[in-house]
């Protein structure tokens, strides 16, 4: 590791980046979590998935949420979407407390959530139709958003005829056509191959730049988080708590060329420190304790591969 050459701190920001964060802070707070907590009872008893989550997100910010597995990232997204009920604290959108799902928060899921019985166009029209738009109006909006995600040609195809990346584009269009204030994305590119994922990330940044939308993006991919986010919310597991809110010092506009830049590496180093600290052996999590592989040799002793 060349820690000597780039022991630049993730806290160091160039003047340009600092000025940008100052501007962001001046914007209106659009989403605020105050002592947000979520616990539920399972067979193992009471589980506290989220505890005392506090953050403020400003208009048109791009926030990524990362954390070790089981830290409640997805629970946080589902709670913000209103699909799961929070058990304590409150959640404010434009300073008003919200409960349950609503048109002001759109969501893109990891799995394919398109309606398989509807064509691509009708999938995108679904939201406006449910919210009282007439057919023609909904169709016009749907075609506009399909154009934006580059899928006009597939308007009359069914979801199963599209590739994984294309389906997620449709899911994004379907969420955005409703003109939500906040777009929640729960590992939306998790099931895509590496190349498609990079393309989708760049595409998402393009959309975000051109649309009045605030994005909360859940991911387990640290590179993805740094590449996309203004700020990264780092959670820790058992219970899910906010560990740190990191301001990403990598300047915008972002490009895949920045993956090797000192700011990028410093941020990644910090994230790795937070998420995978060197743990003493007895602090294995429960899953690892339960699964102990016992390797036997199935080949002849002289048949070595290394």
């Amino acid at each position, binding site marked *: 590791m060349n820690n000597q050459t780039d022991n630049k701190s993730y806290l160091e920001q160039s003047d340009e980046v600092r000025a940008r964060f100052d501007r962001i802070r001046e914007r209106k707070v659009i989403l605020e979590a105050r002592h947000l907590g979520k616990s539920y009872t399972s067979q193992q008893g009471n589980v506290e998935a989220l505890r005392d989550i506090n953050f403020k997100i400003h208009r048109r910010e791009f926030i990524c949420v990362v954390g070790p597995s089981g830290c409640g990232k997805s629970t946080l997204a*589902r709670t913000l*979407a*209103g*699909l799961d009920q929070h058990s304590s604290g409150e959640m404010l959108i434009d300073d008003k407390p919200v409960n349950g*799902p*609503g*048109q002001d*928060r*759109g*969501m893109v*899921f990891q*799995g*394919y*959530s*398109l*309606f*398989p*019985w*509807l064509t691509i166009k009708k999938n995108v029209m*679904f*939201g406006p139709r*449910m*919210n009282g738009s007439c057919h023609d109006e909904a169709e016009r909006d749907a075609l506009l958003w399909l154009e934006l995600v580059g899928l006009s040609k597939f308007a009359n195809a*069914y*979801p*199963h005829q599209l590739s994984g990346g294309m389906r997620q584009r449709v*899911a994004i269009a*379907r*969420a955005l056509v*409703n003109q939500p204030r906040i777009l*929640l994305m729960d590992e939306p590119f998790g099931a895509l191959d590496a190349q498609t994922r990079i393309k989708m990330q760049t595409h998402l940044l393009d959309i975000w730049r051109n649309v009045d939308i605030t994005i909360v993006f859940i991911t387990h991919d640290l590179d993805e988080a740094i590449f996309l986010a203004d700020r990264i919310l780092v959670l820790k597991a058992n219970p899910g708590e906010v560990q740190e809110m990191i301001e990403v010092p990598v300047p915008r506009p972002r490009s895949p060329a920045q993956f090797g830049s000192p700011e990028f590496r410093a941020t990644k180093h910090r994230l790795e420190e937070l998420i995978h600290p060197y743990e003493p052996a007895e602090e294995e999590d429960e899953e690892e304790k339960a699964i102990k592989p016992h390797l036997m040799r199935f080949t002849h002793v002289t048949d070595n591969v290394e």
Partner: protein
Amino acid sequence: MNFASGKNSFSLAKYLQTHRQALLVLSSFLLPLLLWSAVSYLPFIWHPKMLVSDPGGVDYFHAGMLVDKSLFKDETANMQEQHLSPPQGEPANPIYLPAPHQVAKAFYTAFTKPPEQKDMPWLHESLWHSITIIFWGFVLSSVVGVPLGVLSGASSTMSRLSEPFIEFFRYLPAPAFGALAVAVLGIYDSPKIAIIVIGTLFQQILIVANTTRKLDPTIVEAALTLGTSRLRLLTHVIVPGILPDLYRDQRILLGWAWTYLIVAELIGTSSGITLFITQQARYQHFDNVYAAIMMIGIIGFGTDILLGRLGRRLFPWDKSQKKE
């Protein structure tokens, strides 16, 4: 990599595959027919009886009579002892196992020649009567069962309220309600339809509820985040989402309705295909009995194939149906 040759060999494999499949489908019907023919036409396989052509000296034999082989042998020995002419005959199967060609002939004559008994209905009239019973039984069951099943699957309150009782009720055998159905609904078609409803409905509710529960929750959640109201969630997401599976369930349940038909038709005044079968069996026209039973099979299997084809047209997005 050589894609062209890979593709060619793939399509050839596919071609062989489809031919192999067609051959297997054909064989699955031909093999039982072959077995039946072997038993019917090869005397050494079974043929436990003797068909008497000339009674000889045996006073109680007459031409056309079927007797056990052992009896025939004893009487032949008897006649030889008494120096009378022995009976003549050939090996035959019991009356209840007609040969394929006899059944085929009965199948044809059932539609062309009027029935021997004057007041008896034709085979096609009996069949049509049975089909109307099945139709109304299944429609009535579905009108209640499908909505109730979908509601039970969609709402846990509904499920807990209805399913324990239905689970209990479905173990009560439908024919047990026969006498009750006659007392309440009379002796004609209504009690028969009622038995089919009782036999189908309770299974239907549980199966449809289970199908509804298997709908991918992500789809429902996606609809919720798009601002769908509870009522519209049911009509615009859950129902269309389960439709291909619901259709498949209905096809299977229709098959079950057919299995209740024979019992149902024995209730009150016997009617339909059951009346035809019991009458023909009484007069020992077993070729007609087999023809009627096969007709049920052909109608059931035929409708299922047609409904399967229709399903593929109706639900072009359904992946699981393409595999059929």
